[in-house]
């Protein structure tokens, strides 16, 4: 079983695999996001309480979900980088950080834009908004640390350790913010059983969610390729890529 993983983790193999994968993933992302956004803006009826403002969830919920998943991915890649020192894991960790941070910021701002009509103020010490803000700080820590250490491999391992401790902290932060803040709006989809969203409201949301994850795949693969080129500079396969890139 182990050999295929080792083969996949070899930079040139993964680089070429990414090149083949990105177009399909991109197509899938475009389709899903297209349907999600189109559905969210047009097909879904306005919410009887929030009116059209609820359409913001088609952007806010995918971004918030992704911001958390990317941090967990970074912690997993960090663990692999620290324990087995696999170069590909280091690239995934370093590449995922800025993407995760951008979606966390998006989730935060769209949460505030959604909060203004609902609660009358852009910033409300709501449990989820506050957790999202702290998550953004955790991302900033990883990105800051990565840029501060010159040697890329040592930097990636340091960020791996930070992401590992950070990911353990995420549920603790979430619980403590929730404990501290009784005003907590239940998250709309995760309420299983009685979804208070009608089917034609929920379908575009799932599409937008999946589309966002596919989009993340595309962005991550492209950045990982960049990191691989940098870390494998001077090797035969990188030289070969350089030649084909110019032709």
């Amino acid at each position: 079983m182990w050999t295929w993983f080792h083969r996949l983790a070899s930079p040139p193999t993964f680089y070429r695999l990414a090149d083949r994968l990105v177009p399909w993933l991109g197509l899938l992302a475009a389709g899903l996001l297209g349907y999600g956004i189109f559905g969210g803006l047009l097909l879904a009826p306005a919410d009887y309480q929030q009116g059209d403002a609820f359409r913001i969830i088609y952007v806010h919920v995918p971004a918030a979900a992704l911001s958390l998943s990317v941090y967990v991915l970074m912690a997993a890649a960090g663990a692999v980088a620290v324990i087995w020192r696999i170069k590909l894991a280091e690239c995934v960790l370093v590449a995922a950080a800025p993407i995760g941070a951008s979606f966390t910021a998006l989730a935060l701002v769209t949460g505030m834009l959604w909060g203004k009509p609902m609660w009358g103020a852009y910033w409300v010490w709501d449990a989820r908004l506050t957790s999202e803000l702290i998550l953004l700080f955790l991302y900033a820590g990883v990105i800051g640390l990565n840029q501060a250490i010159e040697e890329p491999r040592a930097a990636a391992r340091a960020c791996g350790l930070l992401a590992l401790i950070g990911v353990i902290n995420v549920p603790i932060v979430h619980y403590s913010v929730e404990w501290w803040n009784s005003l907590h709006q239940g998250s709309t989809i995760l309420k299983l059983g009685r979804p208070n969203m009608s089917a034609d409201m929920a379908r575009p949301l799932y599409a937008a969610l999946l589309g966002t994850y596919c989009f993340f795949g595309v962005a991550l693969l492209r950045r990982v390729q960049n990191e691989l080129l940098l870390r494998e500079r001077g090797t035969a396969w990188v030289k070969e890529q350089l030649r084909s890139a110019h032709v």
Partner: protein
Amino acid sequence: MSSSFWNMGGYAVYVWGSYGLAAAVLAWNLLAPRLRRHDILKELSAEE
């Protein structure tokens, strides 16, 4: 497109603001790696 679509039941600023930002984030996440790739290729090929 009917005007009520654009004004989003009075929440136009918030809804279109959110979607605009989302578009910006998606664009940045597509563009940034492409620009960086360009710089990397330039830097590496100069070292050949």
